[in-house]
C-alpha cells in the first residue's frame, strides 16, 4: 500500500501547571525529522516520557504541532480534513479504549460513520485476522480478557481499511505471552495486507521481534534512525548504545 508520511522540523511545546500554580512551557518534541514510507513496521523506541505518544497523536491529528509540518502523500496535514485523515491513518491506543457494547458494535463503529455497509463476510474476515473468530460477535466487550479487548480494538481500527496503523504501546497492559501473540499478529497483518504500521514502545524485545525500521527518541529528540538489525548490532550513537545497555 503506497503511502508516505514526512515529518519536517516538528516541535511540540505543552503548557503545564507547576506546583506553585504558575504555567510552565515544556518542550516535548524538538526538531523531529522523519520519513515513513514503504510497507513496513516502523518502531519508535524510547524511554518513558521521551515524547513517543505525543508524536503518534500528532500523526493521527489528535494534537497539533507547535512548529513544523507533517505531509501525508505530499499534502500538508493542515489542509487535510481531520476525519478524512483519521480514516486513512488509524490508531490503537495503549489501553483498548473500547466503547460500551458488543464486539460487533465496536468493529462496525468506523464503517457506520460513513454509512458504509460491511458485509458479514468482511467482519468475519477481520475477526479471523485478529484471531477472534471463535468468540461470538455479540459478546459484551467488558467480558473479554485484556488481550482480547486489545484485539477488538485492532479489529475496530482495521474495519476502517486504513493505509497506516498507529500503535501506541498496544502491549503494555498484557502479560508476555499475550503480548507476543499480539506482536506476531501485527507482523501478520503487515505481511498480509501491506498496511504500514508505526508502533511506539519502550520495550526493546518488542521492537526486535517485529520491527523493520526504528528511530530512537530520547528527551524529545530523535537520536538515531536505522534498520532494526543495524540499530541493535551496530548502534551509531553513544546514546543508542546506552539505551541498548539499559543505562538510560
Amino acid at each position, binding site marked *: 500500500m503506497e503511502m508516505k508520511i514526512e515529518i519536517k522540523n516538528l516541535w511540540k511545546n505543552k503548557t503545564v501547571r507547576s506546583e506553585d500554580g504558575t504555567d510552565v512551557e515544556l518542550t516535548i518534541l524538538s526538531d523531529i525529522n522523519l520519513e515513513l514510507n514503504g510497507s513496513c513496521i516502523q518502531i519508535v523506541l524510547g524511554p518513558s516520557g521521551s515524547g513517543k505518544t505525543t508524536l503518534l497523536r500528532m500523526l493521527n491529528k489528535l494534537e497539533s504541532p507547535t512548529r513544523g509540518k507533517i505531509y501525508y502523500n505530499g499534502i500538508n496535514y493542515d489542509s487535510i480534513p481531520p*476525519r478524512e485523515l*483519521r480514516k486513512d491513518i*488509524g490508531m490503537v491506543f495503549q489501553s483498548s479504549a473500547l466503547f460500551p457494547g458488543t464486539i460487533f458494535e465496536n468493529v462496525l*463503529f468506523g464503517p457506520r460513520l460513513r454509512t458504509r455497509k460491511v458485509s458479514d463476510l468482511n467482519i468475519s474476515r477481520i475477526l479471523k485476522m485478529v484471531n477472534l473468530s471463535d468468540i461470538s460477535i455479540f459478546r459484551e466487550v467488558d467480558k473479554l480478557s485484556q488481550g482480547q479487548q486489545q484485539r477488538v480494538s485492532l479489529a475496530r481500527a482495521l474495519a476502517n481499511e486504513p493505509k497506516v496503523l498507529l500503535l501506541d504501546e498496544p502491549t503494555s497492559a498484557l502479560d508476555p505471552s499475550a503480548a507476543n501473540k499480539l506482536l506476531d499478529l501485527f507482523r501478520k497483518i503487515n505481511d498480509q495486507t501491506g498496511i504500514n504500521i508505526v508502533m511506539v514502545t519502550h520495550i526493546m524485545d518488542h521492537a526486535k521481534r517485529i520491527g523493520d525500521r526504528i528511530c530512537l527518541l530520547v528527551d524529545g529528540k530523535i537520536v538515531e534512525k536505522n534498520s532494526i538489525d543495524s540499530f541493535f548490532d551496530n548502534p551509531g550513537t553513544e546514546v543508542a548504545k546506552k539505551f541498548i545497555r539499559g543505562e538510560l
Partner: protein
Amino acid sequence: MIIGYVLKYIFNLNKWYFILLMIFIMALIAGHNAVKRQKVKIAGLFPIVSLSIFLGAGIAVAALIILILRASPWYEPQYLIPVSGMMLGNAMNAAALAIDRLIGETKNRRLEIEAALSLGASPFCAIRPILSEAARAAMMPTINAMMVVGIVQLPGMMTGQIIGGVAPEQSVRYQIIIMYMLATSVTISCITILYLFYRKLFTKEEQLDFEIIQ
C-alpha cells in the same frame, strides 16, 4: 425586602418591556450563578448559559401564560414574574449540573472520545454518549420531583394555594401543569446548553481542548 419594593414598582408600571427586561435580568443573574459554580473557568460560557436558561424558561412560560392561564394582558406581572422565577430557578440548577457533568465525564472518558475521533467520528458523534449522560444527570432532580409530587412533597405553590383557600383538587391541577412546564423549561435549557457548549471542548482541528479539560 428590597425585591418586594422592586416588584411592587414593576407591577405598578405594568409595561410589557419593563417586565421582559426584568425577566431578562433574572436570566442573566441565573446564568452568572450557574457559571460561578463551575470549577473550570471557560471563556464564553456565560452568554451560552444565560441564553439557554432564558430560552428554556421563556418557551415554558409563554406556553403557560398564553395557552393555559390565558392571562390578559399576556404580560400581567402578577403571573408572569413569579412563574418566570420558578422556571428560571430550575433551569439554572439544571444548566449548572449539565455543564459540571459534561466536563467531568469528558475528563473521565477522554480515551473513549479520542478513540471515536481517531476512527473518523465528528466531535458530536464522539461525545454524544456523554451529552446524553449529562442531560440525564441534569434533568434527574426535576424528574424525581415529578414522580413524588403530592405524595412525598407538597410544592410551595400548591401549599400556598391550599392555605389561601383554593380547593385542593384545583391546586393540584395547577401544580401538575407547573411541573410539566418546569420539565419543559429544564429540558430545553439542557439541550440548548449542551448543544452549544460541547463545541467549546474541541479545537477547530476536532481535537479535545486540553486547556479546558485538564
